[in-house]
């Protein structure tokens, strides 16, 4: 069988239009605004004094190993830190140079996105956004690919590299077990200044707006996490612009899964439809060839018969 140029182009265009139909269907999906009544935590940096009691409480509730420097040693604040497998939350200090006022603290931990990038990148479904609002991790199914660490726009998940047999991806769980028991997350319970507020995400946004409108000269008019990456369950308000306190402002408002949904949505189409399509084209071609062969055979036979007739008359 030989494929002509025209035939090949025909197939390609047919396949292309088929996959296009599927991608447009995905592009028009509705924007997910999080589970209704999901919980969140508001971090009000205006109250934070950088005492690290949240870090201590987090360490205790997650049964992590004790750090090299004790929690009341505030010299660790001199360096900018990231979350690690042994510190699921860290507080960083930023000097308020402009107005020569007291420094601003920012607490980092998993932001518990409404549509988590880690969950969409994970191909074994180890991450799950619960209806309570937290993003939880199931180590029993994790294969250790660490795609979640690459996918996270906030660079939060960490890996237990020093655990030879059962390494886990480590990140804040918003104390999901405690929330289900109607208790406060450990860091919120520990904060002596009320810089961390736990509640329904909608109520927190309302409260944050009230704070900003009540003290316009003490907060910038921005609730970080309300829209970032499609919205997160952890929200922040601060007196300094967030880009000055080490938070990314260039993330946009599109949730990470939405960016990949189009391409990933095409996979089943390619895997299933293409085979059907190609098999169909092959079958049609085979039938054509068969028909052509039969015709040829008949023609030869007919020609043979005619020849016989001619010879008979001779």
């Amino acid at each position: 069988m030989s494929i002509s140029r025209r035939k090949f182009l025909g197939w390609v265009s047919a396949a292309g239009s088929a996959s296009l139909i599927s991608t447009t269907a995905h592009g028009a999906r509705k924007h997910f605004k999080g589970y209704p009544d999901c919980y969140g935590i508001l971090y009000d940096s205006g109250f934070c004094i950088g005492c690290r009691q949240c870090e201590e409480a987090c360490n205790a509730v997650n049964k992590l190993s004790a750090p090299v420097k004790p929690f009341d040693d505030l010299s660790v604040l001199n360096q900018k830190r990231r979350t690690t497998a042994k510190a699921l939350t860290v507080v960083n200090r930023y000097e308020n140079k402009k107005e020569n006022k007291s420094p601003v603290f920012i607490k980092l931990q998993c932001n518990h996105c409404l549509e988590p990038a880690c969950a969409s990148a994970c191909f074994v479904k180890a991450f799950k956004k619960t209806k309570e609002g937290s993003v939880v991790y199931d180590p029993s199914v994790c294969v250790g690919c660490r795609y979640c660490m690459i996918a996270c726009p906030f660079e939060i998940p960490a890996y237990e590299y020093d655990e030879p047999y059962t390494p886990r991806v480590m990140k804040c769980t918003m104390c999901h077990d405690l929330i289900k028991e109607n208790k406060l997350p450990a860091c919120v319970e520990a904060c002596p200044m009320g810089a961390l507020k736990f509640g329904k995400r909608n109520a927190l946004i309302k409260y944050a707006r009230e704070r900003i409108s009540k003290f316009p000269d003490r907060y910038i008019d921005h609730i970080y996490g309300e829209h970032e990456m499609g919205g997160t369950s952890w929200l922040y308000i601060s007196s300094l612009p967030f880009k000055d306190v080490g938070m990314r402002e260039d993330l946009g408002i599109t949730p990470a899964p939405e960016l990949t949904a189009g391409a990933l949505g095409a996979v089943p189409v390619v895997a299933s439809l293409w085979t059907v399509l190609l098999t169909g084209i092959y079958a049609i071609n085979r039938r054509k060839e068969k028909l052509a062969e039969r015709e040829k055979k008949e023609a030869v036979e007919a020609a043979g018969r005619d020849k016989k007739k001619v010879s008979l008359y001779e």
Partner: protein
Amino acid sequence: MKQRRYQYIKSLAVIACMAFILTIGVNLTKGGQGDISGIETSPDVFTFDMLGGGDRLETKRFDKSLHDLHTEITGKECGTCHHVKGKETSCRKCHKETDRKKIISMKNASHISCIGCHREMSGPVNCSDCHTRSGEEETAKSGEFPIPNQAKPEIMKEREKDLDKHRGTPVHKMSPVHFDHEIHREYLDKCDIPLRSGSGSCAECHTADGSKQGQMLTAEHAMHEIENKKSCVGCHEDKKKDKECAGCHRVMRKGENFNAICLKCHMEPSKHKGGKALMNKSEDIQDRDIADVVIIDKLSARYGAVELPHRRIIDSLLLGINKSKLATHFHNGKETICLGCHHYSPPGKALGCDACHNSLSDGQDLSRPGLNIAYHQQCIGCHDFMGIESPGSTGCVDCHKVIEGKTE
């Protein structure tokens, strides 16, 4: 060419038509919204001066600012005073000069209601707090208000002339403000007032109805614009950011209690005391038990009790107030100082923090933190705003006693 011009004109005509329809539409919708005036209306001035004993005593004007103050204190519960529900009106509508069958006289009604409530809430109860002797006020009025800068007497005249023109209009139902130039002279630079040469007073350009020279900014707005440091209110608001003031004032919303202090500026000249010291020491707050030291040990699971130097704090706050003429003038009474920490307490009754803040931070009420957080926010917040470096915000043992046997 002709065709193109025709098309051009046609499209212009279409746009014009659409614009016309749009403006009509917008106007219609605007008109449809109707007038949404304030639901709570209260007259500007109430007077209780129709009393029977008018020949002997005159009664203080119960004006809008006093009404607002009472509205605020009662938590907008109109029924506290206006006891006929749904028919809130002037007391005088029912209470006449003499007692009738079921309705007592105005004198008795106001004495029973006002004084009764004031006794409970520690409001003013002395006769002279509400009444003046007949004739007394007249002599006081005739006494001239001292203008410190005698070189500019025309300022006051100008103001009076302006007043005469607009007397009776809503703007001037308030008493005129007697602005003391001498006190404010040193702040004029800070307030960034563009003093044009030759201009006599603010009111010369900022007239009651606004004038072209004053960029149509009316006197009322020019003086009361809270966001503008050039206005009276804006500059006073800005002064609250000073370290001595910030401890109490930074936790208040901008312009909080603004309606309750109208009379602090709009006052009769005779009442102007000109920044006398509020009191010298905390001992001057009479009839109150002021603790020297308050022991806070309600939540001492991890750290020991805290000894709060209660009297020392009051004295140092008073020192800050008495330094400033602005502060002594505007702090309403002696108890005002208590409200800095004992916020939302009824006048004269300083409630402890645990009266409202629960021992558990249950997170039910976002704007009312638990007791532990309330203590920390109050102490550390105030120290931070007032620039008090010791005790530091993270020096736990600076305030807390160390419990023996505990590692921290």
